[in-house]
């Protein structure tokens, strides 16, 4: 069966993380992704890269693991859009695309001559998606930021972390994945509209506004009650005990959430602490929340010498929500992840088997997983230049000579 987005061609002019995430989601679902890279990109390879596999050319620029993970299911077009000829090729290519995605700072596409107005002139029904940090209008339009800076402004930092410490942060790049998912959703919505009416449109996904959806309860507490929430660590508003407790061993942690009276009773039984059940301080969920510090201490002492995996099994088999805080090395052995093939493996021609994190669903008609390995530099060049645009060998050679395109990163 064909994947859902096969036959839809998407031009990706992106940087950093959010744009590429949106792109790979659509590529994973079968869209024909053409990711534009400057001829000079990938020239410097920070840190190390894994070795090439036997028989494959040794091209370190194709083996940067973060880049491969973010840009799987796409092919790479090497093109210098800043040059006049490069821009013209870009515009001609855009005529043949259904969607364009860009996530540069707001002025960039205008300066390059590939903003919505320019593209629309060549392709009136293009669906053009910008993913700026703050939006192209408003006092912050000229402000620059990456994902973590948006986490600071969205309230997520203020609301995440330990009560007695500084504002925290979701691990790694939460903002970008959130933005990429929202953008992928909206693009498919726009495609539906275009199927029905023939109309494209301009879409702006402000990363900050996408992230504000995650803090809505805190925003509502301000608008409804004038209350400014604070971070509460691992505590829950209405469940207790609720926290992360140290087990035996290095960096061994178990998360435990008592979400019902039954679970509380079971926990007391397992801990052999019926005295806790009898104690008025813990006799209801509300009382337990009020006395959660004391409960956390009791639990910490109890878990401290226990094996985390055994504890998870024991607690879960008694109907208690508990789970090991898995470390990155434990993910590949986790039985549920193995069962669900949570990692989708590609066969990268120069790296060998590569584990990708796929989107979070399985589909009975196969719209799941990934479509393709990471993009080899310039891998889409011939398809775009020859098949789509009808350029000759001489045309292409001129472009190479002028460094408007290349088949390997330009290093001068």
């Amino acid at each position, binding site marked *: 069966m064909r994947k859902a987005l096969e*036959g839809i061609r998407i031009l990706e002019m992106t940087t950093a993380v959010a744009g590429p995430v949106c792109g790979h989601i659509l590529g994973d679902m079968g869209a024909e992704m053409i990711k534009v890279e400057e001829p000079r990109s990938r020239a410097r390879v*920070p840190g190390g890269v894994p070795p090439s596999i036997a028989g494959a050319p040794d091209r370190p620029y194709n083996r940067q*693991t973060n880049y491969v993970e973010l840009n799987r299911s796409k092919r790479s077009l090497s093109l210098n859009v800043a040059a006049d000829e490069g821009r013209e090729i870009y515009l001609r290519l855009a005529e043949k695309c259904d969607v364009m995605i860009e996530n540069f700072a707001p002025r960039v596409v205008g300066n390059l001559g590939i903003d919505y107005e320019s593209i629309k002139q060549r392709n009136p029904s293009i669906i053009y998606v910008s993913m700026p940090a*703050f*939006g192209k209008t*408003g006092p*912050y339009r000229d402000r620059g930021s990456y994902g*973590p800076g948006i986490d600071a*402004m969205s*309230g997520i*930092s*203020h609301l*995440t*972390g330990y009560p007695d410490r*500084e504002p*925290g942060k979701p*691990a*790694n790049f*939460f903002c970008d994945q*959130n933005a990429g*998912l*929202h953008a992928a959703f*909206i693009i*498919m*919505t726009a495609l*539906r509209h275009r199927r029905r009416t023939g*109309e494209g449109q301009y879409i*702006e996904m*402000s990363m900050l506004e996408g992230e*504000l*959806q995650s803090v*809505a*309860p*805190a*925003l*509502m*507490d*301000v*608008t409804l*009650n004038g209350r400014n929430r604070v971070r509460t*660590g691992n505590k829950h508003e209405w469940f207790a005990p609720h926290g*992360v407790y140290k087990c035996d061993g290095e*960096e061994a*942690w178990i*998360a435990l959430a008592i*979400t019902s009276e039954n679970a509380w009773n079971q926990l007391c039984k397992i801990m052999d602490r019926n005295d806790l059940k009898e104690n008025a301080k813990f006799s209801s969920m509300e009382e337990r929340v009020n006395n959660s510090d004391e409960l956390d201490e009791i639990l910490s002492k109890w878990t401290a010498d226990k094996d985390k995996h055994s504890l998870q099994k024991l607690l*879960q088999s008694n109907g208690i929500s508990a789970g090991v805080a*898995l*470390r*990155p090395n434990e993910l*590949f052995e986790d*039985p549920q992840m193995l*069962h*669900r093939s949570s990692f989708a493996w590609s066969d990268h021609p120069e790296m060998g088997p590569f*584990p990708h994190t*796929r*989107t*979070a*669903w399985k*589909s009975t008609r196969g719209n799941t997983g990934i479509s393709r390995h990471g993009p080899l530099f310039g891998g889409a060049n011939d398809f775009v230049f020859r098949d789509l645009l009808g350029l000759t060998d001489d045309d292409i050679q001129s472009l190479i000579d002028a460094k408007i395109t290349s088949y390997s990163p330009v290093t001068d």
Partner: protein
Amino acid sequence: MQGIPLEGLKVLDMTTSTFNYAGKLLAGFGADVVKVEPPDGDPIRYQPPFVNDQVDPELSGRHLHMNTGKRSIVLDLDIHSDVEKIKDLVKSFDILIESYSPGYMESLGLGYEQLNAIQPELIMASITYFGQDGPYADYEGSELVADALSGYLYLTGDSDKEPVKCFDNLIEQQSSLQAAVAIMTAVTARELQGGGDYLDISATEAALFLLGGPAQMYHWTDRIAGRVGTRLMNSAPQMFYPSCIRPCKDGYVHVHSNTRYVDLLGILMEQPRLNEPEILETPMGHADEIDEIMSRWLMKHDKFEVVRMAQEMRLPFTEVFTPEEIVNDDHLNERNFFVEVDHPLAGTVKQPGAPGMMTGTPWETKRAPLLGEHQDEVLGNQ
């Protein structure tokens, strides 16, 4: 010429709590989303914050936000004739979303196989903490434990303390966002090729999706990432620094160097040591020292001043905002991010609006429904 992009799509929303987000997204862009609630209403209606702290199923801020644009009917799944009504509705609906434990819908005769027989084009999306089957399918789920078993919890927080979860139900919300993307994929497939789909969404995998690299890093290098507070995950000594949250005179700011013009930070803060080669070559390796040097300047300035001066020099600093500052923020209000929604019992409520701006087919925020408000409309004389 403005259109309604999801016009004509009919959705039965049988989700609860933060899993309601997918239905909200679909409703905001014009799908007809009918929420099927138990007799006392979706439990989200009893979750704070409430209007003026009044506990009432029509006054929950979570419900008022999460259920915008939906209609509401009440059906009791313990009553056979009510379950039959769902089967009747399914015949003319396109999408069904639910978040019950694995096997529950099937036990009622509402599993995908059973409903697919009634409606062969049905798209059904089931959201659970761990997935429909496998060793954890019977596990007791929760936001915190899905976070834990995804690997994401381990990576959040400080290295000298326990892992800490993100605010509220971030993972549940992400799983529902993933469901919305999956649903639109299935809608696309159905409209282009025909046929329905069964989508099995896992909250644990939604959290795994946020990891962004540590799993791959372990596979390729055997290095195990740890918690780094608000610093960036890659902690090789030559790695870029600072990107972190630091205190300033009146609060906190996110500090971020300019990746291209690395000397700007030292110039802004008038600290030449920051531009010495030793520091510039291995910034992450000198992170603690850099923090100490920066504090000399940061503690002299308020957060708005810090950010203003930094942004003027193209250093992408930002303020750490509180929820109150966000609600009153000029930029967001100028862009009409917040909307004022009239509700017959809650009054006029200021709440977050669109997650994205479609110029041709704009998002519309319509109020959340009263419990069972659309019973007669949807079920007629049944």
